[in-house]
């Protein structure tokens, strides 16, 4: 709402019409505009920055992808080169006399034969679990040319730890401790000492299975003994 004063006064028009007074203008119009422009375009600059970083990341990724297979190829090339460059170990004929050379050759032959026996022993210890692997092992031993070995390779099929007959062990235990089945009502009232003290044997039935297939089981549940009495049962196959 306008007041009752006449608005078209000369002095007011003078103030309105003037475009700018000498002392009352912006000192640096360009700097002011830059500030304003920066404020007007904050989101766009953020988006630009986002695009910039996304583009940079994609370029970097592309470069890495293109370089990686080349590196692998280079590695293979280097390996093959190394294989070719390894010199053969030969005894220089000029330096070593003939007799000592023969002795050395003998010693080497012995060492090789020993090495083969050690290998075979290791194979025996490994004890393959499946039939396929046994066949493979046999093939490998044939390739190794095991004529020098005093005893031929014997591969014994042994049951693995997973195949251990746990049921058998439980059956053996069952033979040892055949408990009479009693109804709860037949037991009558429990003595006060037993109620006051927790009966450890009720919840401590321990069964220890070792690799040599000996099973240790405590018999405290049967004897009502709070201590640890172990019974030993062997499930190993008799050889």
């Amino acid at each position, binding site marked *: 709402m306008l007041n009752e004063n006449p608005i078209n006064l*000369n002095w007011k028009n003078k103030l309105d019409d003037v475009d700018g007074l000498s002392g009352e203008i*912006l000192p640096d119009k360009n700097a*002011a505009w830059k500030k304003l422009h920066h404020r007007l375009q904050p989101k766009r600059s953020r988006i630009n920055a986002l695009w910039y970083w996304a583009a940079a990341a994609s370029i970097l990724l592309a470069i890495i992808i293109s370089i990686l297979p080349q590196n692998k190829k280079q590695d293979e090339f280097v390996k093959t080169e190394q294989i070719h460059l390894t010199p053969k170990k030969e005894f220089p004929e000029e330096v070593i006399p003939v007799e000592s050379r023969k002795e050395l050759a003998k010693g080497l032959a012995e060492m090789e034969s020993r090495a083969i026996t050690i290998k075979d022993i290791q194979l025996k210890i490994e004890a393959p679990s499946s039939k396929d692997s046994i066949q493979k092992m046999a093939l490998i031993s044939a390739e190794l040319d095991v004529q020098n070995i005093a005893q031929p390779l014997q591969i014994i099929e042994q049951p693995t730890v997973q195949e251990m007959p746990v049921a058998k062990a439980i059956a053996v235990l069952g033979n040892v401790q055949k408990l009479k089945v009693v109804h709860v009502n037949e037991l009558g009232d429990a003595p006060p000492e037993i109620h006051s003290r927790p009966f450890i044997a009720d919840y401590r039935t321990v069964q220890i299975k070792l690799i040599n297939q000996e099973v240790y089981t405590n018999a405290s549940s049967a004897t009502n003994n709070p201590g640890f009495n172990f019974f030993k049962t062997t499930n190993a196959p008799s050889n």
Partner: protein
Amino acid sequence: MEIAQLVKEAKQGSASAQKCLFDLLSDKMMLVCRRYVKSEEDAEEVLLDGFYKFFKNLAVFNFQGDAALYVWLKKIMINECLMLLRKKNVFTIVTEAAAENFPLEAEALNNLSAKEIFDLIVQLPVGYRTVFNLYEIEGMDHKEIASLLGIAEGTSKSQLSKAKLLLQKNLLQKGTGYVKRKSH
């Protein structure tokens, strides 16, 4: 380029058109801001805030001529100035009884140049100056001024009469130049 074309391009987000509008109108708007805000730094801040709002809301502005655009921008600037003054808590105007409306010697002011009138207004204290600007130059009534500044209507009236008295006093103090021009 015409202002109408500049406004159209600025609405579409053209930075060059916005800059042209800023260059065209900033000096005039700076003068408006300086009439309300004494400090040059504050006036510049207000000017930038005002132009920011102007460009942000330009899309909803219906251009009906240069004068309409100027009035709208001036209104934005005045609002920004009042916001800054309120923020700085400069309106410590004590409620006063309504004073009699003292008539302003318009004839005396008419003889002055724009610069002289501007200097006289700027010399007034902030409370007087604000009410004087809003009533005498922007043409608002006391009710509107009171609601804008958060003061009583009577206070607005008394501030205006005091502003006019002080202006008159300053005019007389200005002395010889004014008297000489009046005698011609």
